[in-house]
């Protein structure tokens, strides 16, 4: 993607607003930041790029006063400061939007915005509202001030978080992987806001591991790797390939995997399926699709077009209004996850933390979530057999853990996903429904997930891969379908599909494939 070539900063006249020198932070015996130097200039958008665990969030949490650095110094506007709490940071006009929002769902946008920022005893809501509307206008952050936050989509909630920071007069805005939760269109809106902020002289730190976004939005990139600064580049002097190398220390495979050699009969069929969402609106509208064994069907589409509801209906978590799902030619009873499991459907849910895993329980208990009943003898669980089963899967899927008795919460995101993969793919599934299987994972973990999905295809499973990541779809899929407003906009063989065509379908433009 190309970015508008209007340089917003000039090397000659940049003034540093934040200088972090030799920042060091360790957690127990893990070094999260190893003598990091980081400078942020006025009016720039600086991307902090790195794999999961590279220390990006830690560094910014130190700047925001969440953590105290073990050593090193921080200067803001040239003045040496000690930040012992976020409040100190807010006073110095720093704002941070975390990955997990800190909003009160039952309160309105306006109430959430002013919370914690009222100086005196009385709160002038009229004045607050005027200030909020002014900020919304200036930075294109349009959300209804009187809407309760729980009614807003994720993108809207993120806007409230940004408004909250700006309401407190932030001049330095830190965003921790802001696009991880956003649909492409929302991302575009966010970028508009960030550009407007930079144009007004605010400085933005944009934490990400998505290369093309960094290339598009940032003026400057600081690459962190294993707690240290690996490189610093002006965006115009670099490209995605170089950044990828700096980030992971090796070239990424950009070629497409070869298509399936052996495609069989349809194994997973969806027949005029209609599903309502939580707000009782039709999210999936009489959708039909057939996936053959030994084939990966990549379902592309902007999120929020019914993919979540489709996946939940297939998983058995949501009862459809109409239509059928057939597995191996036989209909699956609706709303019965157990039957889907018994009939060998592997399910990789998009919310691995909240749907796929029992974070408070152990690794072995998570590995037998679906088949614990098969370890039963006279109502009791055969713990020895469960242990052997777990040890085998931990070895086979390379799950890094302190052992099968470790509490799942202590594992990294990539290893949590491996638990799910091990659980779902080890029982030679007939069909696989994978929803956003690599979202939020680092490059190494993504490659591993891809490898396992391809292996499942080789062993003859019919695979529905639902993903917002077009690169992923083009990399893995044999056929590509695009979902738009609950319907299939178009289906094409991967080797005949162009990115442009798919992009058109995603935005709801239906033209015959060229």
């Amino acid at each position: 993607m190309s970015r508008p070539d209007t340089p917003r900063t000039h090397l000659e006249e940049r003034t540093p607003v934040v200088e972090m020198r030799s920042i060091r932070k360790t957690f127990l015996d893990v070094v999260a930041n190893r003598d990091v130097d980081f400078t942020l200039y006025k009016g720039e958008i600086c991307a902090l790029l790195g794999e999961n665990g590279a220390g990006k969030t830690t560094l910014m949490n130190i700047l925001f006063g969440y953590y105290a650095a073990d050593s090193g110094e921080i200067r803001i506007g040239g003045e040496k400061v000690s930040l012992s709490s976020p409040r100190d940071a807010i006073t110095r006009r720093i704002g941070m939007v975390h990955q997990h929002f800190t909003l009160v769902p039952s309160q309105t946008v306006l109430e959430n915005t002013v919370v914690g920022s009222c100086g005196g005893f009385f709160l002038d809501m009229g004045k607050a509202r005027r200030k909020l509307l002014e900020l919304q206008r200036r930075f294109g952050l349009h959300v209804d001030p009187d809407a309760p936050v729980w009614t807003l989509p994720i993108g809207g909630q993120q806007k409230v978080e940004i408004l909250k920071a700006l309401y407190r007069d932030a001049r330095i805005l830190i965003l921790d992987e802001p696009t991880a939760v956003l649909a492409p269109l929302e991302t575009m809106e966010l970028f508009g806001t960030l550009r407007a902020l930079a144009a007004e002289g605010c400085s933005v730190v944009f934490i990400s591991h998505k290369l093309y976004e960094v290339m598009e939005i940032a003026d400057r990139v600081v690459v962190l790797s294993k707690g240290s600064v690996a490189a610093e580049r002006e965006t115009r002097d670099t490209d995605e390939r170089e950044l990828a190398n700096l980030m992971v220390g090796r070239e990424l495979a950009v070629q497409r995997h070869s298509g399936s050699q052996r495609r069989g009969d349809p194994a997973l069929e969806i027949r005029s399926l209609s599903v309502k969402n939580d707000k009782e609106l039709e999210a999936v509208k009489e959708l039909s699709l057939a996936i053959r064994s030994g084939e990966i069907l990549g379902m592309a589409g902007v999120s929020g077009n019914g993919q979540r509801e489709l996946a939940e209906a297939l998983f058995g978590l949501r009862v459809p209004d109409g239509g059928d799902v057939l597995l191996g030619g036989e209909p699956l009873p609706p709303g019965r996850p157990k039957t889907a499991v018994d009939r060998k459907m592997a399910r990789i849910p998009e919310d691995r933390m909240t749907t796929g895993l029992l974070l408070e329980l152990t690794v072995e208990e998570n590995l037998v979530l679906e088949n614990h009943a098969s370890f039963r003898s006279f109502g009791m669980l055969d713990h020895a057999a469960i242990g052997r089963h777990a040890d085998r899967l931990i070895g086979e899927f390379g799950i890094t853990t302190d052992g099968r008795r470790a509490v799942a919460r202590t594992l990294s995101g990539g290893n949590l996903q491996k638990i799910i993969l091990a659980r779902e793919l080890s029982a030679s599934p007939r069909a696989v429904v994978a929803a956003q299987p690599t979202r939020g994972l680092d490059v190494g973990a993504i490659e591993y997930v891809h490898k396992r999905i391809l292996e499942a295809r080789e062993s003859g499973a019919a695979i529905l891969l639902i993903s917002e990541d077009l690169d992923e779809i083009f990399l893995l899929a044999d056929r590509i379908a695009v979902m738009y407003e609950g319907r299939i906009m178009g289906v094409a063989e991967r080797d005949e599909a162009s990115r442009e065509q798919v992009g058109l379908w995603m935005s709801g433009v239906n033209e015959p494939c060229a």
Partner: protein
Amino acid sequence: MIVSKRAPLPGWIQLLVPVGAVLATLLLSAIPILIAGGDLWLSYASLFKGALGTRYNFLETCVKAAPLTFTGLAVAFAFRAKFWNIGAEGQLLAGAIAAAWVGIYAPPLPKALVLLLVCAAGFLAGGAWATIPALLKTKYRVDDVVTTLLLNYVMWHLMGYLLFGPLQMPGSSWPRSPAVAEIARFPVLLIRSRFHLGIVLALVAVLVVWFVNSKTVFGYQSRAVGVNPRAAAFGGINVNAVIMKTALLSGGLAGLAGVGEVVAIHFHLLMDISPGFGYSGIVIAMLGRLHPVGTVLSAFFFSVIIVGAQSMSRLTGVPTYIAEVIQGMALIVMLIALLLTEYRVKAVRD
């Protein structure tokens, strides 16, 4: 003040937390004792002597610990599965009513069978009473804290109706049932004491709950539902069925507390058959960290306080309701201790 989530603490600290909480509670209890004008040293000495000092006192403490163990287990088992059963009191009363009914009209059967019948009736009555809020929770998503709590009062008044009506002792104007038949009473197991069969049953219940929790398929499913109902459903577990079964078992345990009070202690059904054992069960379960073994230990601790407070009161003039003050204090101390084990609190000057 800043509160932030802590990294999980090592296991031995987790074990030390309740012990520390107990010590802190005893220490803090000095304040109300002093206010009440008690001599500190004498107060604590008489408290422990009264509860543990002689064989008889020790056995009385065991007697008191039995219903507390049952209600503590009832709450702990339910809380583990995130079924917020605040209704052990009502379920206890349901169990007591059923036990009294069966005990008064005991059929002419061998004693063992009659006792089995009494226990079964109490268990089922308590369990059935607990399934009402469970049904409301699973079918209509009615908040279980509210329903379980409010049903306590419903059961109390139902008992009042029975004791002024069908279950009232003939010729009496007091709300009191006829005595349960000799054959339906728990045997006393140690001479010159009230140490009865129910205490052994309570210890058996501890083992059963531990076994169910950690060894059975149902225990696994109930744990899964407790930590994440959505993921449990995703994994094919019938969440509603697990909640119903949990409620039945939890209510049944509370019902057994009522059984013992009727057929081993009072031999009549009375309006004040329970001095709040069901509510104490909540504190006991929390202090026992929802673990069955922890629960029986904390039930014993509370029993020490309750029994000991009586002799402390006799010797020092500190009112017996100091026992309730100490119980309340224990809950607050334990909640603070749990907060501190999971969160780091940092004081910051404004």
